[in-house]
């Protein structure tokens, strides 16, 4: 009898040696005369424990991590393959508090099995949502999505059900579903981990969306920085076609839906929905004015349902378990769960999926275990490079769309980046402007040119050149960018800049530049 061993094939796990650990386990076990079956599962999301090795035992799966190649021989010698206790051991994985305290809906299956094993996908509840969607009228499916309270997880937070109804009712025979997998925000990796760790859930969510709104083609626009996700998705699409739930007759329903994977080419703005549509048409990723909204005139001028990976990945569970179950989670107008990503200088980084309403402090301190460096937290950036920097004393804010907006921040794609007390906030503000200058599509003058001027003004302030007047100038520039840009790139770059000035003003004084915090 062989021992079943799980070693994640996720890119993050492989970036710290999971491939080598998997190979070494097979090698050492063979030398000991034990047959092992190594399964490359998705990551459980406990990234600080990667490579996280799990052993199937009679009592359940037992976890060890972080395991290095050098650890393997000694670990096997001390009973790894029997699930014996060890300094690197974490006991039964199903009982690890970091996981049991979460409420996983979109990430429910990630890490449990081989991401491309269709039998495992069915066994774990896959395709139930799609079957139900195909069995009821399309208007009812769209109504379910609306009733679930699901809002766009890409950052804008628009009610998904309204989009579905708009595309469903839009005239025209040709319609599209486009999945935005251009996850460019620093501090976010949930889309990638879902695509690598449970691609069928995304494909199922898209198929429900497509067959509901009357689209026959779905496109997933994946950033080129995610080569493993692209490979996994392409294989998953092939498997789904063979399995009969993608193609001319989805699960025998008579409805046709197929999915194409499109690779991006390194442009942050292409994560903005209209720029993504331009890029999908093969053009420069320039932002389009709205209206017309993509739901009515999107890809090649046809009605297009555009959603982020996490929005579509919530759909199968909503259909399978009912809108009420999803709507029952969360607070106020933020319903369901949010997949938070703990990143940066953090002791226990990774995926935390919870109902809306958890405080930022609980995420960063209880789940995240504060900083990796062991130094005090000074700032936390929520919502990617266009999100605000919050000071340590503001961490009690609740993590929902409205509460964060009221605190001067935004949820964005749910990324949480922690900085310790060595951070120079003037340098971070400068970087926000520099990033905008590099990545601006160039359509709006305030974004294209204002960002370069922003870098120069911040340089003057930190060099001590007329700092008071230049701070006023910086504020005026931020106002112009906010009010005069079509999309969030120019419109929200001022958010990190202004929050840095407001909360960490001492870093902008030349006398204390870079030292203000100590």
């Amino acid at each position, binding site marked *: 009898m062989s021992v079943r061993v799980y070693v994640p094939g996720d890119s993050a796990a492989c*970036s710290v040696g999971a491939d080598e650990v998997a190979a070494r386990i097979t090698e050492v076990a063979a030398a000991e005369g034990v047959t092992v079956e190594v399964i490359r599962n998705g990551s459980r999301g406990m990234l600080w424990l990667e490579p996280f090795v799990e052993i199937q035992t009679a009592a359940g799966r037992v976890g060890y991590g972080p395991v290095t190649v050098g650890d393997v021989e000694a670990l096997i010698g001390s009973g790894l393959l029997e699930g014996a206790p060890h300094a690197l051991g974490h006991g039964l994985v199903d009982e690890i508090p970091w996981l049991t305290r979460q409420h996983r809906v979109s990430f429910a299956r990630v890490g449990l099995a081989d991401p491309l094993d269709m039998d495992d996908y069915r066994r774990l509840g896959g395709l139930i949502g799609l079957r139900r969607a195909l069995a009821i009228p399309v208007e009812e499916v769209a109504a379910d999505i609306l009733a679930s309270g699901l809002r766009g997880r890409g950052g804008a937070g628009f009610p998904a059900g309204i989009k579905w109804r708009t595309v469903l009712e839009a005239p025209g025979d040709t319609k599209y579903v486009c999945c935005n997998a251009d*996850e460019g925000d*620093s501090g976010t990796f949930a889309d990638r981990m879902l695509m690598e760790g449970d691609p069928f859930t995304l494909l199922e969510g898209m198929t429900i969306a497509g067959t509901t709104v009357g689209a026959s083609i779905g496109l997933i626009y994946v950033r080129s920085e995610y080569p493993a996700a692209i490979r996994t998705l392409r294989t998953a699409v092939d498997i789904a076609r063979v399995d009969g739930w993608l193609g001319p007759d989805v699960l025998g329903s008579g409805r046709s839906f197929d999915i194409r994977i*499109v690779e991006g080419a390194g442009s*942050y703005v292409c994560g903005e929905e209209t720029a993504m549509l331009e890029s999908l048409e093969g053009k420069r990723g320039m932002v389009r004015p709205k209206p017309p909204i993509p739901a009515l005139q999107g890809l090649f001028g046809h009605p297009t349902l555009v959603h982020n990976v996490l929005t579509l990945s919530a759909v199968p569970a909503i259909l399978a378990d009912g809108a009420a179950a999803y709507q029952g989670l969360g607070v106020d107008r933020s319903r369901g769960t949010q997949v938070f990503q703990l990143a*940066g*200088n953090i002791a226990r980084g990774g995926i935390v999926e919870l109902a809306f309403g958890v405080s930022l402090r609980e995420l960063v301190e209880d789940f995240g275990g504060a900083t990796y460096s062991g130094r005090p937290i000074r700032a936390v*950036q929520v919502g990617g490079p266009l999100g605000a920097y919050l000071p340590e004393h503001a961490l009690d804010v609740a993590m929902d769309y409205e509460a964060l907006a009221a605190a001067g921040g935004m949820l964005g794609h749910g990324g949480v980046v922690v900085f310790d007390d060595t951070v120079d906030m003037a340098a971070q503000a400068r970087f926000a402007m520099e990033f905008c200058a*590099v990545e601006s599509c160039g359509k709006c003058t305030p974004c294209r040119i204002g960002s370069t001027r922003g870098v120069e003004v911040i340089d003057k302030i930190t060099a001590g050149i007329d700092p008071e007047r230049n701070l006023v100038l910086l504020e005026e520039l931020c106002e112009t960018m906010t009010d005069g840009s079509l999309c969030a790139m120019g419109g929200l770059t001022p958010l990190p800049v202004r929050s840095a000035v407001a909360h960490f003003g001492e870093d902008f004084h030349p006398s204390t530049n870079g030292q203000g915090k100590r």
Partner: protein
Amino acid sequence: MVWKVSGQITSESAIRALEALPTHERLILPCLQAIQRAYGFVPDESVDVVAGFLNVSRAEVVGVLTYYHDLRRTPPPAVVVGVCVAEACQAAGVRSLIEQIEHDFSVTLGVGKASGPVEFAKVYCLGNCALGPAIMVNGRLVGRCDIGRVRAAVVDAQVVPR
């Protein structure tokens, strides 16, 4: 992000690469990506080929070619290292790692500028934000980088043909 460098650049071989594309990929960006997959970069000569193939102007092709960071107009060196310089990796110490890289390899980090057999480029987020600083070497992601891990990854890439 992963480039394969192959042989002779001729308009015939460029057209073959384009004709292999399915109809729905016969758009400017996918055509340029196909050229880059074939040659490792987009040679100037291929601009006319793409324009002719799609019946669009050269200006439209060059517009797309110069817009996307991934598309390069010069042959790639043997090893291309993308160093993530975005916020999460900054929080994890990439600013000091960059200083060490620039010192050790005698380079200046830029966006897509070749300098010798190893090219270091700035990239903005590789999606490995809990295990930073992160780099990508010829398409392979490496996390929790210090200068030692960067050096080892570069050496590995030099011995493994891509």
